């Protein structure tokens, strides 16, 4: 009996020992696997646990005008944020709310502190501390715990409204920005950027301006409320951007517009850079930075459209200012010569359709040749020419004058002047172009629309005798271009002297500009806002300022060695010669006096 019990005891103890040793062996194998086989992998995981880094937002590059004025730069701003390593006491929260009672209320502060603790991240409680704020905070610093001052940058622009459209503005990144930048910037990581260029040069040169983030490496604990900084690699500041805008001339042009809607664009014919590009009315670029969405809506709904960049986007009928360009086309294809004359009685009768077109001057210009038609701006002369135009040649010519293509790679947003061909008319009216359309096109009316930038370029084409390049604000993109037509040197000289006569001949539509010493050549135009079929209607229209004609002037100076071309558009300004011309004169004087 006793032996049996001892036997059972020994057998069972041996069995249990066997189980124990088996499990012990299993455990040793398991630890061998974890520590020797998987050791490096698991250690890597541990390093990932502990070592983390955060990005340091870089300082954005400056934008500097050709006359050395800093138009945009990042300025250091200080903000107050919660400190994740130290929970603020209730007392501190109350004291801080008292201290900045005009900037934050205690309930909001509590919410922000709460979410900071919950998500273990630093939350900004007061943005953009002024010097006084900073002093106030630092003085009472010992009583308030759990908050810290952090540095950041804010975009600061030259506040003159003339520069807003060229510079553009910054805003919080959204999906369409990501779509825009992803193909343009290599390895674009949208998650790193909070504010990006929304328009203008800020958008086009985002990559150059944005710089590169720095990194702050640290070791952190599991809760994320303790961190030890181990290394910092500083950010790379964005590159400065030198732009072609001459800020003095730009400001002058804006002020000369005197609150009227319109645009002035100047191209430097030496390199086709753009020293002046204004759109009026405008706002200060800083205004757009901190406004509410409601105020933004107001700006969008403003009938004067201050946010719309007329210089690169506005489409206007070029009216008479297209005549010199079409003269080249007409001369080269033999549609006319310097000797042909017609009798201008103030009307053009299109017999095929039995329609009568009015010209601007009552009674007409009498016996008119090409030179007189340019100087005095005779519509019937050019209408008479345009019914002879061969459609395909005309379209080709317009295409070579950069209709229907992008003019400027770094102008944003950018609109090109539509190329009026059969496709265009089909798309818009479901019909082909017919003869009657050319009568209007021939005098820059009807379907023909150009941007101020394009008009300035057309003026440049005239000045440079058909050879031109695409204009730019920062960097030249494309090589030399030329129009398809090739008239003789003598024809060019007569055409250009006609444009001088426009200004200096007493009959010229630009004589009242009193250009004097400037050596200006140019062409004025008056674009109809509404179709007018009779003189009575015309008088009615003059009463409503919004229906008044747009005043247009294109020109270049000095005419014997062209340096600048210009286009001026004053919406509802009525007379190109009297209203737009003097603005062009003063802007060009300013630019040429610089030298």
């Amino acid at each position, binding site marked *: 009996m006793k032996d049996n019990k001892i036997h059972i005891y020994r057998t069972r103890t041996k069995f249990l020992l066997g189980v124990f*040793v088996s499990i012990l062996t299993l455990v040793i194998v398991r*630890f061998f696997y*974890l*520590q*020797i086989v998987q050791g490096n992998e698991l250690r890597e995981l*541990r390093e990932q646990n502990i070592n983390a880094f955060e990005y340091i937002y870089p300082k954005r590059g400056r934008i500097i005008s050709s006359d050395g004025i800093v138009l945009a730069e990042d300025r250091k701003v200080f903000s107050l944020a919660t400190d994740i390593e130290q929970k603020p006491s209730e007392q501190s929260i109350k004291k801080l709310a008292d201290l900045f009672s005009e900037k934050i209320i205690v309930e909001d502060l509590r919410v922000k502190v709460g979410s900071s603790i919950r998500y273990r991240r630093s939350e900004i409680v007061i943005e953009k501390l002024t010097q006084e704020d900073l002093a106030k905070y630092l003085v009472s610093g010992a009583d308030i715990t759990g908050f810290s001052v952090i540095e950041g940058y804010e975009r600061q622009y030259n506040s003159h409204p003339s520069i807003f459209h060229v510079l553009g503005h910054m805003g919080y990144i959204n999906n369409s920005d990501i779509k825009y930048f992803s193909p343009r910037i290599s390895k674009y990581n949208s998650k790193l950027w909070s504010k990006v260029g929304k328009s203008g040069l800020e958008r086009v040169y985002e990559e150059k301006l944005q710089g590169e983030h720095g990194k702050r490496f640290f070791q952190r*604990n*599991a809760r994320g409320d*303790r961190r030890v900084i181990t290394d910092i690699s500083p950010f790379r500041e964005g590159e400065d951007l030198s732009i072609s805008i001459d800020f003095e001339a730009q400001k002058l042009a804006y002020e000369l517009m005197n609150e009227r809607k319109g645009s002035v664009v100047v191209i430097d014919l030496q390199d086709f850079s753009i020293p002046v590009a204004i759109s009026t009315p405008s706002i200060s670029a800083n205004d757009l930075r901190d406004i509410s969405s409601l105020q933004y809506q107001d700006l969008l709904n403003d009938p004067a459209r201050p946010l719309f960049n007329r210089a690169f986007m506005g489409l206007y009928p070029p009216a008479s200012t297209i005549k010199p360009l079409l003269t080249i086309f007409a001369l080269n294809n033999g549609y006319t010569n310097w000797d042909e004359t017609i009798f201008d009685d103030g009307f053009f009768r299109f017999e095929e359709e039995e329609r009568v077109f009015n010209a601007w001057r009552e009674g007409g210009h009498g016996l008119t040749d090409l030179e007189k038609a340019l100087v005095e701006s005779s519509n019937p002369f050019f209408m008479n020419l345009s019914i002879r135009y061969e459609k395909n040649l005309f379209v080709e010519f317009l295409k070579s004058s950069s209709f229907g293509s992008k003019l400027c790679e770094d102008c944003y947003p950018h609109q090109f002047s539509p190329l009026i061909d059969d496709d265009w008319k089909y798309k818009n009216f479901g019909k082909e172009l017919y003869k009657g359309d050319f009568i209007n096109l021939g005098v820059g009316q009807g379907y023909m629309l150009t941007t101020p930038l394009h008009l300035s370029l057309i003026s440049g084409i005239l000045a440079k005798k058909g050879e031109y390049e695409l204009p730019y604000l920062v960097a030249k993109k494309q090589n030399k271009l030329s129009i398809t037509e090739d008239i003789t040197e003598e024809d060019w000289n007569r055409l250009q002297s006609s444009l001088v006569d426009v200004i200096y001949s007493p009959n010229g539509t630009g004589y009242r500009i009193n250009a004097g010493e400037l050596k200006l050549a140019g062409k004025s135009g008056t674009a109809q806002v509404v179709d007018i079929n009779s003189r009575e209607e015309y008088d009615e229209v003059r009463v409503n300022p919004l229906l008044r004609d747009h005043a247009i002037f294109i020109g270049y100076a000095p005419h014997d060695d062209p340096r600048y071309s210009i286009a001026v558009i004053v919406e509802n300004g009525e007379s190109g010669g009297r209203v737009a011309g003097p603005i062009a004169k003063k802007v060009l004087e300013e630019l040429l006096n610089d030298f």
Partner: protein
Amino acid sequence: MIFNLRNSIILFSLMIIILMGSLTIYSVTSIDINYFLRFLLINIFVILLVVLLFNQINLNRIFSFGWLLFLFNILLVLSVEIFGKEINGSKRWLDFGFLSLQPSEFMKITYAIFAIQYLRFYSFKFSKFRTIFLLLVLFLSAVPIIAQPDLGTGLVYIFLGLMFLFICGMHRLYFISMGIFGVLLSPLIYSFGLTSYQKGRIVSWFSSDQTLSEKWNILQSEISIGSGGFSGEGFLNSKQNEFNFLPEADTDFIFSIYAEQFGFIGVFLILLSLGCFIVMTTLLTMTEKRLTSDLSPYYIGTYCTLVIGFSFLLNILMVSGMIPVVGLPLPFFTKGGSSLLCFSIMLGLIFTSRGFLK
């Protein structure tokens, strides 16, 4: 005291475990060297005190108090419900100011002493009635532990109690039938007997979703162990502990911190010491020449040795991700008064039963 080679090896293995345990607690909880010395001294003092105390008492005297001790223990467990302090959503501890005790820890000792007193009266003859009575007492006394809720301790208590009855010679038919019964009943127990927290632990163990918090604990534990590599990061160099990535680093998961600091070599050393201590002690007890008709000292000695051994292994299986997380202490490592006291008492019982110190 009989100092021969075997006893020296046993004592030496035990000293390694106690020393390493104290070092690890020190490395987890504090960087003050005084704290370590105090801790080591307290450990050794408590162990020696308990061992010597038990040595002075005749084991038979202790056995004769079996049912009283057991009843007192059950009352303590029940009183936790009323006076206990709550930690992590369950009431397990009685706070005595200078130390907090977890009475359920002691159940595995008092049940064995109670069973010895009961069986010894019948010369360890398992009749049907006695077997069922002892099993009923075991299962019913586990109920208040499980209700705390502390499923882990409760299950381990039942498991160890059964192991004790197994050592004492209960008929194997009962084990077989209980095994079958348990397997059949487990889906029912899972559906109706478990809280969602307990279910979560079990589900997470089978799930491969690394984001579950239970899984996260195990992952962090494995990261600690693996980071130790072959030779370890060195004493006081546990980064997982320094940066708080390992929860319960001073209690249930303390072995992971040990493994990170001392590497596979350290783990092997501990397991070797444990193996030596458990196997040699058990074998020596079992092959004792002077086995008398009263086997109770051998039963209790073997039982206590194996409890220390299996407790150790269960905890290590848990921290290395081989079984679900159950809050089991690691003998002589885990920081906590009741665990230290409980395992010291077991050491006392082991040494006394063998007449080791005589």
